């Protein structure tokens, strides 16, 4: 999409709030991570999985769509001396390409999905110098199992020589698994959370996530659209009201 203002400003992990054309009985915009951006154009990565995304498949070159963005708090650069590790589940790689592009050190990326058709854009990460390790639940591509089934042995062998810093996007259960490994080892992990959103700009208080309270006692709500979608894993409070 041609969008010079957003494209020039967007940072890794930020999103745009898209009004899907021809979806008139569904009111809300839909948030999409910006997959790629140059100084004029944005690329979004989506799959035809519901009414909204199905309607998007009918867009043709030259059509106009309404976007608000760039929105949200981006991923930071990795700390000096750390080794960046991307962990993507589902279509989480959509939020991680700009992270991969902007890191000074090319690291290792773990992509997990249900089956081979869920593993997208491996070539594009490899082209910019990343090692990509794939897992699928049905074993149709890469190692059979969950993304952690590949991540854990890799960490066991590599953690003696390097200090991983995680950048992760995917289902909550996977994010929680990555966060757990980071916390146990005192590594830094940045996770991008996906919650259904209303306004996208911090007004409606729909997409809230529990985080540690600033005074150190208990928890507070943070808006995924504004304080997030990227949170440092150690700030997040996980509980039962967060769907996996």
């Amino acid at each position, binding site marked *: 999409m041609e969008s010079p203002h957003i494209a020039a400003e967007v940072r890794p992990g930020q999103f745009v709030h898209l*009004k899907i054309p021809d979806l*008139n*009985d*569904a*009111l*809300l*915009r839909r948030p999409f991570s910006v997959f790629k951006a140059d100084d004029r154009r944005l690329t979004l990565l989506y799959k035809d999985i519901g009414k909204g995304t199905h309607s998007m498949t009918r867009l043709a070159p030259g059509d106009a769509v*309404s976007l*608000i963005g760039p929105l949200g708090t981006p991923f930071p650069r990795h700390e000096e001396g750390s080794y960046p590790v991307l962990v993507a589940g589902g279509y989480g790689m959509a939020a991680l390409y700009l992270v991969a592009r902007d890191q000074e050190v090319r690291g290792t990326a773990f992509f997990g999905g249900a089956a081979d058709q869920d593993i997208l854009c491996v070539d594009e990460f490899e082209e910019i110098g990343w090692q990509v390790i794939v897992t699928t639940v049905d074993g149709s591509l890469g190692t059979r199992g969950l993304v952690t089934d590949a991540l854990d042995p890799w960490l066991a062998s590599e953690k003696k020589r390097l200090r991983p810093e995680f950048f992760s996007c995917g289902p909550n259960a996977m994010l929680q698994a990555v966060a757990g490994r980071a916390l146990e080892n005192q590594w830094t992990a940045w996770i991008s959370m996906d*919650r*259904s959103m*209303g*306004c*996208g*700009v*911090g*007004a*409606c*208080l*729909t997409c*809230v996530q529990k985080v540690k309270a600033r005074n150190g006692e208990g928890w507070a*709500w943070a808006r995924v659209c*504004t304080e997030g979608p990227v949170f440092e894993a150690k700030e997040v409070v996980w509980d039962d*009201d*967060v*769907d996996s």
Partner: protein
Amino acid sequence: MDLSVQIGSLRMKNPVTVASGTFGYGPEYGELIDINGLGAIVVKGIAMEPTMGNPTDRMFETESGLINAIGLPNPGFLGFVDKYMPFLRRHEVPVIVNIWGRTVEEYERIAKAFDTVDGVHALELNVSCPNIKEGSAMFGTCETSFRRVVEGVRKQTKLPLIPKLAPNVTDIRIFARAAEECGADAISLINSIPAMAIDIETRRPRIANVTGGLTGPAIKPVALKLVRDAASVVSIPVIGMGGISSAADALEFIIAGASAVAIGTANFVNPNTALAVIDGISTYFETHGLSAISELRGTLRS
């Protein structure tokens, strides 16, 4: 052409404001649109003490509408004044603060507290939120309680007072009249309509609070009818809201009897809606040779 509206001491330069809870406290949309273009801004509900609101999920999209049960999370009186009033004072747009409580005494305390806050131009009394456990909704649906809270708050503030009416009552005219008799300067309506949705696979409600309030275009015809009913029995101004997303929608409410309108859910869809509605109303007035809101207000023909 003069599109201004007077509500007690509050002068709105045009008849378009935003519905409480759909516009945050101002800064959220301040980066996206020129909020000084609005007739007024209504901030999200404030209580004396901070509250956390409801668990998630808090919102579900339905056909042409939304069900929400946010549960009035709020930073408390001091938190609001400290964090948001400096921003609002830097803007010329009049500020209407939506206030709520769990008891008559809590309503009185918060009203009194705001009475002396510089930069607050009016108070909207939230007696009709369907989504908190105690108090609020009862004050909107029981006439005796409604009168007690409006009378009580009236004694605590000189600011223009705007009770916001619940739609789920047998006869909205009773509440409209009661508001006027108890000293309200205007009424606003409607609040969201109690509603729910169920996931048939899990058999769980779609939102954590089980029920919520329906908003958006789906409720516009209901809101329009209730605005007409309420406006027919009071002489104070009526601020109409419920699913307005275009100038045409807003003009329907004015013809039904509203002096002003508020944009709610449509802000989420297009943050520019309120400004576009103002432009559209101006164009309509020009085209139809109208020069004041009063020339169109309540002119429904039979």
